[in-house]
């Protein structure tokens, strides 16, 4: 029983939040990685694109609620998602047309595109704040829990409860669907393969008759979709605050680089590496151990590797360590 309690504790405080946050990071990192492999620059605006996606989801949810449509117990935002994805994709395509295309055709250095993406980041964050304001907004209007800790305790009789929020469940399921579709697209369809071919060997792809414009169109299509989903899910799980998305950029880059930038599988693994290390390093193991070893043997003080204040800093530390020790990441990615 004690051991089960210990496991329940770990599941509740590490596995479930880790999976949720990992999914959000992985979706973000996939977007960054795909832009990097095809367009060859680090897109600092990706966090703001996610924020843009979340914002459109909220705006459309408001319109939907105005017509009293709802799919309770699921949050209304699920209904809004397809439309907001389309809007985010259009925004991405517009940005590409007016900002990135010129430098791509001029063959500017990739650092220039990176700086352009910072311009896009400023512009988008301004646009978002003008449109919806900087305030905190709750997205979730559905049921709060799939299973609450109290109910779980009642059913199982354990002292430790496991709670699974609806937003967490949705995050994990939607992420799995998105990733499966993405991999199907990249590996099984002709267009997806042509994208991989383009990023693998651009000159040869052109010789084979693959068209640059098409590849770039699909790249932004995927990026916009991923950004919108990731942004909306992140906002659904926590709450929508525009400025948090700026802080999300670096953890996303960390995930992409840890996994090996340019490698979609790496991006997913990287997302989970970051999310779980954040939780494992800042988790206080006192209670966990109290279930496993006699109380007398428990060491005094908090059994925590780093204080929770450093939670986000962990992703930066991992990022810097990986860059210095193994810049290609876990799965040999492309070197920037």
């Amino acid at each position: 029983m004690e051991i089960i309690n210990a496991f329940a504790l770990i599941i509740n405080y590490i596995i479930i939040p880790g999976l949720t946050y990992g999914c959000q990071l992985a979706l973000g990192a996939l977007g960054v990685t795909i832009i990097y492999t095809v367009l060859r620059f680090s897109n600092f605006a990706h966090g703001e694109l996610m924020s843009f996606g979340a914002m459109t989801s909220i705006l459309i949810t408001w319109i939907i609620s105005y017509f009293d449509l709802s799919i309770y117990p699921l949050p209304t935002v699920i209904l809004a998602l397809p439309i907001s994805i389309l809007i985010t994709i259009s925004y991405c395509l517009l940005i590409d047309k007016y900002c990135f295309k010129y430098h791509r055709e001029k063959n500017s250095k990739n650092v220039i595109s990176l700086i352009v993406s910072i311009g896009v980041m400023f512009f988008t964050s301004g646009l978002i704040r003008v449109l919806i304001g900087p305030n905190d907004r709750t997205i979730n209007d559905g049921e709060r829990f799939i299973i609450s800790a109290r109910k779980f305790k009642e059913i199982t009789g354990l002292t430790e409860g496991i709670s699974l929020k609806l937003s967490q469940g949705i995050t994990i399921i939607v992420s799995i669907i998105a990733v499966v579709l993405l991999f199907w697209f990249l590996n099984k369809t002709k267009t997806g393969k042509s994208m991989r071919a383009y990023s693998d060997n651009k000159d040869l792809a052109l010789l084979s008759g693959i068209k640059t414009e098409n590849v770039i169109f699909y790249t932004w299509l995927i990026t916009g979709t991923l950004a919108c989903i990731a942004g909306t899910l992140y906002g659904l799980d926590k709450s929508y605050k525009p400025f948090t998305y700026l802080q999300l950029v670096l953890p996303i880059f960390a995930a992409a680089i840890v996994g090996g930038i340019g490698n979609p599988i790496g991006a997913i693994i990287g997302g989970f590496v970051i999310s779980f290390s954040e939780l494992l390093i800042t988790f206080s193991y006192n209670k966990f151990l109290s279930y496993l070893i006699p109380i007398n043997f428990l060491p005094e003080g908090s059994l925590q590797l780093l204080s929770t204040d450093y939670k986000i800093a962990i992703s930066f530390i991992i990022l810097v360590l990986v860059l210095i020790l193994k810049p290609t990441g876990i799965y040999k990615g492309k070197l920037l």
Partner: protein
Amino acid sequence: MKTDFFSEKKYINAYLVCAFLFLLVGLFQSWNVAFSILNLCLISAIMSIGINIQWGNSGIVNFGVMGFAAIGGLCGVLISMPPTLEVWKDGTAVILIILFSFLISGILVKKFLKKFIYNKYLKILLSIIIILFSLYLIKSIFIPSINFIENTNSAKTGYIGGLNLPIILSWPIAGLFCGVIAFLIGKIALGLRSDYLAIATLGISEIIIYIIKNEEWLARGVKNVNGLPRPVPYEIDLQKNEFIQTLSNTLNLSVIELSSLIVKGLYSILFILVLLIIFFLLQKAIKSPWGRMMRAVRDNETSAEAMGINVKKRHLQVFIIGSAIIGISGAMLTTLDGQFTPSSYQPLRYTFLIWIMVIIGGSGNNHGAIIGGFAIWFFWIQAEPIGIFLIELITIFLSDQNEIKLYLLNHAAYMRLLLMGLVLILALRFFPKGIIEEEKRL
């Protein structure tokens, strides 16, 4: 030495435009506002010179401006504030010694690992063990002393305090200290190029901010340090001064306004002095054989290397110099503010805005960096009025009570982000060389 500060007409024009803008602000808004903007413009100009040295002269992408500026600010606190005597008497000295020896031993261990252990995985394993061990040390020795410091009079001090020296000393010291930090960072990160270096330096600067925010014993963390001593007199003292009082009568200004004008003016003079010193030293360096070598490295690394230039060493030098300059400006900023607020360090404001200054000003030219610093900071401050004006213009056909118009006007403050992004994107497209082009030198 005669320099060419005003030798070329286009520079004069750009500087005159800046002066004219300040005149406008002084006349139409207030001179107080004009001088506040000027002071921050000067600091921004110094920061963008720091980046310009790295990016314009060597192509190094340093996104760590925020970190160095914060370290500079920290120096301001540690130099100028009175020491917290209680903790110096018993706890802290121990900590500092341990901290110091810890750093040294850390470096030694790294050297040892490099020299004697060839197996990569063993090396990683050993590093992890060392890190865990040091974490244990931190837990068992550091934490108690830290708690002691933080609990000593925590409402007012709760940190180690400073050296009680004139704050102006912190400016050169911040430069030195940031130089040392830049050396350490450069040693490990400069092997990376462009995108990776940008991300790495951004990450490192975030880590620095996190440490400053959370290690309260160092500089009170998010509790901020207020009331830093000043290099210039206080307004209240000035107001008591008879000469000032008579001056205010003759100028027909209130004493309060005049005194704050004088204080700001004195700051401006100090900042201009620093800017000029840095500028002239750099111009001299750029014209020297060393500067030529740097440009050779930037324009073609491979051939520079083939000519026997140690590219890595050059990059490290430039990285240190640029970061030191940013550190100096960081200390100046804290001096001007009179307080150190770690949570105010945001990458948007410190890293990316400075980068916009460099790009807009024209990379590779220090005049450009100064003008860029002035222009962008001015724009950053004045973007809200501009935004309101633009919204009024767009919604000219809507009534004053129109909801959309009111909504937009309420959110005009955020127009500055939007406009700034627009300026950067447009500049990169239509004026990639910036306001002032790089000087052609042989």
